[in-house]
């Protein structure tokens, strides 16, 4: 322990830091404008006078219900399939693990439209898996609500897998060892120790996946088209309205904005109080 007081190097340390340089301030101001102006525009151009009438339009409710339903279903699919995959990537050792991990992250950088085309190539009637699904199970995914869930899960899964894998990696593996000495099998250890310890990571991964699914557009419209009631989710409804009724597009955008911000805020309040490391 040295006798000298430590020199604080953190942010906002006062006197010695001097003025904020304009070289940083000006670009930062433009960044704020770029992020905030569009949202302001949305509020300014909103058809406030006809708002109540338009909100009760059954098409709005239909699209919103479909969006919430499919986004939630996709989140559940991502949890059921993605958490086990994340565990494999974080805890198991097998040949090709790195390759698998790289493949899992591909949808993250893939343009969603390409994802939609790829899904058609796989699950379309003439696709590699689609024909088999149709023949044996009579299941056709494209242009159905189930197809929307598949498209949303495809783009949202990597978010969940990466978040959960990170949480599992940072969770202390010595707890797993300890559980083993008490006679717990690997599956019991996963349920009673590993998963509870990674819970904050799983939760934030689920929220990320849900938000990504809610905003999904490209893969969904390419794979499923845009049919009111079955595949036209909020983003697709906004796109459809844009050409015919711009005010309706603004209104739908506002609704989507309010819903997503409200749910994220609620979750943050309820589950993410305190630092999530």
């Amino acid at each position, binding site marked *: 322990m040295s006798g000298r007081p430590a020199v604080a190097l953190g942010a906002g340390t006062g006197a010695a830091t001097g003025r904020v340089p304009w070289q940083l301030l000006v670009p930062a101001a433009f960044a704020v404008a770029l992020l905030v102006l569009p949202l302001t525009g949305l509020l300014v151009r909103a058809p406030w006078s006809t708002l109540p009438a338009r909100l009760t339009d059954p098409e709005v409710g239909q699209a919103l219900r479909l969006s919430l339903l499919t986004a939630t279903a996709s989140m559940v699919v991502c949890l059921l399939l993605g958490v086990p995959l994340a565990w494999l990537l974080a805890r198991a050792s097998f040949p090709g693990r790195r390759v698998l991990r790289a493949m899992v992250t591909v949808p993250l950088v893939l343009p969603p439209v390409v994802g939609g085309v790829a899904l058609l190539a796989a699950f379309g009637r003439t696709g590699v898996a689609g024909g088999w699904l149709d023949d044996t199970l009579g299941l056709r995914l494209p242009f159905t609500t189930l197809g929307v869930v598949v498209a949303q899960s495809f783009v949202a899964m990597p978010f969940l897998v990466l978040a959960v894998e990170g949480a599992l990696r940072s969770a202390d593996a010595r*707890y797993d060892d300890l559980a083993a*000495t008490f006679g717990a099998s690997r599956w019991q250890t996963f349920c009673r120790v590993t998963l509870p310890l990674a819970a904050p990571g799983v939760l934030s991964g689920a929220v990320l996946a849900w938000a990504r699914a809610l905003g999904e557009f490209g893969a969904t419209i390419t794979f499923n088209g845009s049919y009111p009631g079955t595949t036209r989710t909020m983003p697709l409804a906004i796109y459809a309205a844009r050409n015919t009724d711009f005010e309706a597009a603004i209104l739908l955008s506002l609704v989507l904005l309010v819903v997503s911000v409200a749910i994220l805020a609620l979750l943050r309040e309820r589950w993410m109080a305190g630092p999530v490391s």
Partner: protein
Amino acid sequence: MTRPGPLDAHLVTAHPRGTGAFTLDVRLAAGVGEVVAVLGPNGAGKSTALRMLAGLHPLSAGHVRLGGRSLEEPGRSIRVPAQRRGVGLVPQESLLFPHLRVRDQVAFGLRHRGADRAEARRESTGWLERTGLGELADRKPSELSGGQARRVAIVRALAARPALLLLDEPLAALDVRAVLELRSFLRHHLAHVGVPTVLVTHDALDALVLADVVVVLDAGRVEQAGRPAEVAGRPRSAHVAALVGLNLVRGTSAGHLVTMTSGTDEPAQVVTATEQHGDVFCCWAPGAVSVHGQRPEGSPRNVWRGEITGMTPHGDIVRLEVAGPVSLLADVTPAAVAELDLAPAAPVWVSVKATEVTVYPA
């Protein structure tokens, strides 16, 4: 489930975790109810040895046998996984499951030994009450002090009725009072377990107080093994002597005069009160060393000149490191430091009475 019985282990691995490049090769034996302490500095391979006993680190050769049953024997392709060894582990830093209350920590092991939920919780409560931890039953680990957490970790391991108990640094990283309380807690409960116990520690005092047998480890090898009194009173290497805080020299004895063969550059001799012949160790406590400004006269003493190379306060004494024909540690009072004007690099004379020197065959 493994029946209680003595532990007989020969642990060999070429790759101890978190240590330098050396081969760990340690033999350990512990009878039923016997406590063996593995004592050594950090990185000596202690924790790896414990992980090998628990089945968490594979042996590359040797064996682990418990109560006549072979748990691991690479030569015969036997390896019982950790889940089926019935070993109770008290890990370093306690490692209480952060999401479980104390009652459920203790119930955790019981459930995996076949008890159902209610039974495990009932038995857990019983254990906590018998060990004086009843009040903590509903607390989360984050609401416990370090000493309380350690006790819960110990009870958690005991409650699962292990066939072998393993403690990894059970007294490390606690404040002085917690260490005192925990030491008596351990002494009391280890005496009643009725299974072999292996504890690893870097603290000689813990090993000497808690164990029936002390095994001193350095760089993966056993340096000395024996009863605590034997190890503490008759160290057989400079490292063990340093651990137990004694001065040690090796030499050849002809009756009452030992000619030093190690630990010195110049010819030096030690006079002893007891008679020995041949290759011997001589040891004496730092407190038995007197320090003088002038060469002392008379009396049958060992007298050497030296130079002070280090001074460290230790409670109400000052420990001097003195380099000379016989390099040694000497404990003096602060008053003596002032009176003799002792300082680093100061020339001094040191003396040790012949009766203070313990001599034993090497």
